[in-house]
């Protein structure tokens, strides 16, 4: 994937570029907002990572200008600001996701992955039935079956599974789950998400040979069919 990094902090930019290249992405970098806007509008960039505070052209202004020209590429905003309302401001300006510094690379990679496959997820959202191996989730009847056997889930477990299935094959972090399923934007002190995942795992994997819900060490969880 072709990713544009617009970040004025050279150290952070270089590490980010290196890490993304290592996982196989093509990277372009810009150190200020104007260069970033130029690169983002003229090239076949698939995704942009934009720092919020940039010289010459502010990160939010960059995203707004980009959206004003009709460019639809996914944009992840990185912010070193105070938080709480900044996230909403960032998303309103046209950002697709928002991450506060300092972040774990695993978190950023998982979000980039989710953003780049947003098109697939959108298509999946249009389907009433989501499938992974022998696991099937019907969003209309709110029925979940595995290998034809009905699985009883609470409303929240259903939502959690739906989110995981929409991102099947990807790594989903705890923060992404807390944001996507519960709409909370803070880090709980306790392992709340882990407990919910382990309950979901009990429900969908316990009576079956092949587990579908995997823990990804140091990153989060992934729902996938293991080889």
């Amino acid at each position, binding site marked *: 994937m072709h990713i544009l990094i617009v970040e004025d*902090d050279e*150290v*952070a930019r270089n*590490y*980010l570029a*290196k*890490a993304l290249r*290592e996982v196989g992405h093509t990277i372009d970098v810009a150190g200020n907002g104007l260069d970033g806007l130029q690169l983002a509008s003229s090239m076949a960039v698939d995704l942009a990572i934009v720092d919020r*505070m940039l010289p010459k052209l502010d990160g939010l202004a960059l995203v707004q200008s980009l959206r004003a020209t009709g460019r639809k590429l996914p944009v992840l905003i990185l912010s*070193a*600001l*105070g*938080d*709480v*309302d900044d996230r*909403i401001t960032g998303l309103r300006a046209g950002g697709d996701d928002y991450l*506060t*510094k*300092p*972040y*774990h*690379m695993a978190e950023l990679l998982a979000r980039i992955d989710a953003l780049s496959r947003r098109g697939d997820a959108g298509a999946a959202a249009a389907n009433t039935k989501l499938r992974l191996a022998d696991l099937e989730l019907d969003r209309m009847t709110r029925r979940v079956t595995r290998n034809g056997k009905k699985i009883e889930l609470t409303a*929240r477990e259903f939502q959690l599974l739906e989110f995981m299935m929409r991102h099947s094959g990807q790594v989903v972090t705890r923060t992404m789950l807390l944001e996507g399923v*519960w709409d*909370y*934007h*803070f*880090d*709980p*002190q*306790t*392992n*709340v998400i882990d*407990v*919910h995942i382990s*309950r979901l795992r009990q429900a969908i994997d316990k009576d079956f040979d092949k587990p579908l819900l995997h823990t990804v060490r140091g990153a989060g969880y992934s729902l996938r069919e293991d080889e």
Partner: protein
Amino acid sequence: MEPEQRFLGVLASSPFRIAIVYSIVFAQGAVALLGAVYFAVSEVVDRSTDNLIEAEVQGLREQVLVLSRSDFIELIEQRSQDQDVRGAVYLMVDPQLRPVAGNVPAWPKIAADQGKWIQFKVSVPYGDETREHEMRAQRFPLPGGYRMLVGHDVQERQDVKNLMLRGLIAAVVLTLLLGLGGGIWMGRRILAQAGAISAVAMQIMRGDLSQRLPVRDADDELNTLAREINGMLDKIEQLTLGMRTVLDSAAHDLRTPLNRMQASAEAAMRDLSPTSPERRVLERVTTEVDHMRSTLDALLRIALAETGTVAREPVDLSALVASLVELYAPVSEERGIAFESTVAAGAEVQGSRQLLAQALANLLDNAIKYTPDGGHIRVLLRGTPAGAATGGPEVVVEDDGPGIPADKREIVLGRRVRLDEARKFPGSGLGLSLVAAVTKLHGARLVLDDAAPGLRVSLKF
């Protein structure tokens, strides 16, 4: 506002009261002025008729001495018929009080003890009907037991006096009514302006510092006041924006190096084997970065809550508490802690959902952290009592952990206070401080109490 309330509001408004006081003062002035005129005029009118009668009596007394009775009777008849002397009345009676001459039909009944002046009523033709007219007269004896009565019709004088009296009453009533009407009009006007001002003030208190008081194109006190308050608001907005800028740059200047630290540690770790001692050191570094980040997040959120610049919206507190209960219950059950909850429906507050969620999550985190395995946690949301105008919802979180001693409840709400007993538990020590800041931002009251055993935290909106 209900119409009745609005009416009472007008009655209670200061311009209305001022208008009432003024109209009473003006009415008193009108009474004094018109009263003086009334008395002066009636004095003058009374005096002139009395003088007229006195002169006539004097004249007739002289005439009776020089004229024969028949000439005198003729004189009386003449004067009675004289159209030029309008309103003059004469009556001459014989010793049996039978009328001899004059234009009054009968001798009036006169009380014995009455003085020189008498007053009586006489029916006089008035177009097709007759009217009772008030007469004022003097009487004097004539030779031979005859008696004479000379007087004047004072009905007109009475009418003028009555008219003046009515005018006086009307003027007073009119002054009072005008004062009342003006008071209501002014009261409503000022009330409307004050209402607009307090509506804006409410919005400002909810955190929308860009709002300004409405100012009309006039130089009255309210407008001057509104202008001055707006100037003050400009200053406050400037200061708050300044605070935010400081917070943002502090955040930026701390997050940027933390981010570099995290990135370099992660980059260095990638090339190391999972068991190498260097890797373990770097993992410690990233753990510390995480720790600093959560402390920084908490501090920034506390500071933001305290500047009051956080955006507010209606928050469905019932849904929020229910969802947090649902998020946390499994964790506590995992540890054998019984988690009970009673959540009233329909509780709503104005505020920041994220900050409220964080604050309540901190309470639940704490409860779970400090409650021993097999303990109890109770969460209660009470809605606004039906029919009660005041008193918002209340959220209560109770645990049966060690609790907080009564003398230390105040201090734990300050920044970074962790009681010695709590040091064995992980955490930044900012949890309750954030709860306190968020509670204050929402105009709620935070009470720490003994749940006997354990801690009882109540947020009363």
